[in-house]
């Protein structure tokens, strides 16, 4: 089995990974993957995701080989992506791959006979991020089913967003998609949501939804998505969560504020100490979820 896209996973797959993560975090199960070697191939730079996988594997007793970026690797010498993947598959028991090329992980999974995990492919999918997001929602909300979730920020280019939308759709979420007009989620995703019968609302205004939702998932709006500095400056502050905003809203009990990190200024740091802020815990949950994913794919569970 591979983890390539939320669209290829079943609800059963997701639910059993969440259950296994719960057991790993609570310590009621102890898994051992010693003797296994996992290759972490990051064709695109990453700190958090690479560290998260690396620590997940090492905490299970496994070992890793890591390729960060491609400047010093054989890729720079002209070796094709396919050759790199095939060669590494001769050494490792599983491959974790991050690439700017969309569909790279799917292609990799077709040319090797060891499990492949997509750690982000361009603006397409980031399924392990979504799995840890769903786990965090389950933990904070006691259930993933029927949650009202706002997704805020860059909904057009963010892979975490695409994965998350399909992940939440499995659990019949009601979505509030909040973004500047030109960073709206792509039309085909809205069409998919319609086909799945998922209720969603689109808006440019965060404050109008703060008191409506169980979960708010904030993503970074990147400067390079704007034509110029002026357009960026005009928009960036209207997509910022501040302490006074959170405190003055009549939030739902158990309101959960999440962010895939890294954060720039989308959530001001004085929000961090509020009880609704769970984004650092979310990162820790990521390590547990990735332990569950790796152990399942290596067949040691």
């Amino acid at each position: 089995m591979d983890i390539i896209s939320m669209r290829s996973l079943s609800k059963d797959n997701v639910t059993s990974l969440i259950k296994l993560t719960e057991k790993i975090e609570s310590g009621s199960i102890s898994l051992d993957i010693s003797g296994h070697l996992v290759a972490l191939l990051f064709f695109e730079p990453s700190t958090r995701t690479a560290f998260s996988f690396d620590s997940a594997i090492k905490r299970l007793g496994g070992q890793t080989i890591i390729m960060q970026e491609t400047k010093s690797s054989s890729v720079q010498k002209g070796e094709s992506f396919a050759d790199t993947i095939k060669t590494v598959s001769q050494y490792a028991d599983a491959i974790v791959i991050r690439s700017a090329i969309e569909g790279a992980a799917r292609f990799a999974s077709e040319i090797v006979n060891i499990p492949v995990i997509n750690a982000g492919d361009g603006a397409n999918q980031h399924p392990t991020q979504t799995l840890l997001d769903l786990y965090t929602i389950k933990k904070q909300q006691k259930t993933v089913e029927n949650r009202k979730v706002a997704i805020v920020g860059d909904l057009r280019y963010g892979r975490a967003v695409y994965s998350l939308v399909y992940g939440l759709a499995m659990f019949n979420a009601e979505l509030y998609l909040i973004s500047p007009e030109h960073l709206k989620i792509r039309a085909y995703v809205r069409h998919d949501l319609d086909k799945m019968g998922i209720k969603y609302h689109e808006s440019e205004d965060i404050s109008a939804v703060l008191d409506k939702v169980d979960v708010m998932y904030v993503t970074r709006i990147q400067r390079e998505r704007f034509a110029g500095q002026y357009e960026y400056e005009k928009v960036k502050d209207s997509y910022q969560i501040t302490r006074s905003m959170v405190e003055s809203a009549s939030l739902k009990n158990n309101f959960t504020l999440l962010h895939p990190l890294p954060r720039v200024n989308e959530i001001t740091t004085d929000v961090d100490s509020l009880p609704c802020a769970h984004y650092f815990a979310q990162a820790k949950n990521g390590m547990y979820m990735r332990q569950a994913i790796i152990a399942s794919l290596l067949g040691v569970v």
Partner: protein
Amino acid sequence: MIKELKVDAIKCGTVIDHIPPGKVFKVIDLLGIGENDQVMIGTNLSSPKHGRKDVIKIENRYLSIEEINSVSLVARSATISIIEDFKPCKKTKIEIPDVLKGILVCPNRHCVTNSEPVITVFDVEAKDPLSIRCRYCERVFGEEIGKANSL
């Protein structure tokens, strides 16, 4: 009778009729018809059914299902006749298959199929209007893909 004068009958092979006007050259491209093939083409012929149409007759060549599928996006209204001894012995209407393999280029320039030696695969999610999803980058494309895209 007049039509026969314009495009001769063939003894055996394949006739693709009712191709939308102007699309016959695209069909030639898609089928990879080369210098050694004996073909007759007609463009902008009058058609009682469609007003104008193109037609192509290929001598001594029988198209496979895959080849027929490959022209389905540009010539959806076309009909295929297999000819034996000057007579049509089998007539089929072109249908868009459920999966389009190796027929289209993915319009997403960030898709792996545009940078690695991968055969493109699109799952057809709806036929009218057309909606197809790239199996690699997972993006969905509509009617515009058949008009603008080529092998």
